[in-house]
């Protein structure tokens, strides 16, 4: 069975500061990894994904995550955050195949303060 651990339930930072949201997973098979973002009163939006290939993946709004197989981690980073990045961030894992059933972490609430 898979599991995902997001160690930080809340991360407050100041605008333009760097941020790292941590995610560790456990699985007995190869996995696909995802970060989803949930802005207030909205649904879950795919932020970025690792399926194969380069272990460093990037989103269009400056976030990146690196798949580290030896540490079973997929931490999310951004070098300089904006107030508009305030949201809940969910790490998720899938065993792949055609059924992308996801197992989610508990989420990390990122609050960016001015």
């Amino acid at each position: 069975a898979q599991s995902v651990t997001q160690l930080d339930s809340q991360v407050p930072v100041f605008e333009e500061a760097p941020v790292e949201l941590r995610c560790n997973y456990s699985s007995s098979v190869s996995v696909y990894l995802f970060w989803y973002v949930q802005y207030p009163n909205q649904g879950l939006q795919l932020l970025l994904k690792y399926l194969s290939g380069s272990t460093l993946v990037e989103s269009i709004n400056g976030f990146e995550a690196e798949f580290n197989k030896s540490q079973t981690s997929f931490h999310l980073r951004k070098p300089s955050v904006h107030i508009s990045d305030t949201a809940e961030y969910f790490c998720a894992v899938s065993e792949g195949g055609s059924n992308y059933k996801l197992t989610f972490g508990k989420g990390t609430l990122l609050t960016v303060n001015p």
Partner: protein
Amino acid sequence: EPEVTQTPSHQVTQMGQEVILRCVPISNHLYFYWYRQILGQKVEFLVSFYNNEISEKSEIFDDQFSVERPDGSNFTLKIRSTKLEDSAMYFCASSEGGPLHFGNGTRLTVT
């Protein structure tokens, strides 16, 4: 960009009543899912649906739950006799065989 749409956004019902949560997946998608998130807890998998049948379901998805694709566009989740602990945000998702696309959710409150 195509979206998964869910209605209603908020549903209040009394314990023991039946509710139907509705979803319109993205039109060319073939895989459909329901997840739920109890306040303060993880987003949990309920069920996946493909080729007009359930492909996988979790322990949560007991006999009180059912899913249906009544026509070519809707995908519904029915809870037959709601309990207080069914109060949660319910998310529908669809996929064409890749990453999931989620709707905005229906907040179900059972009183």
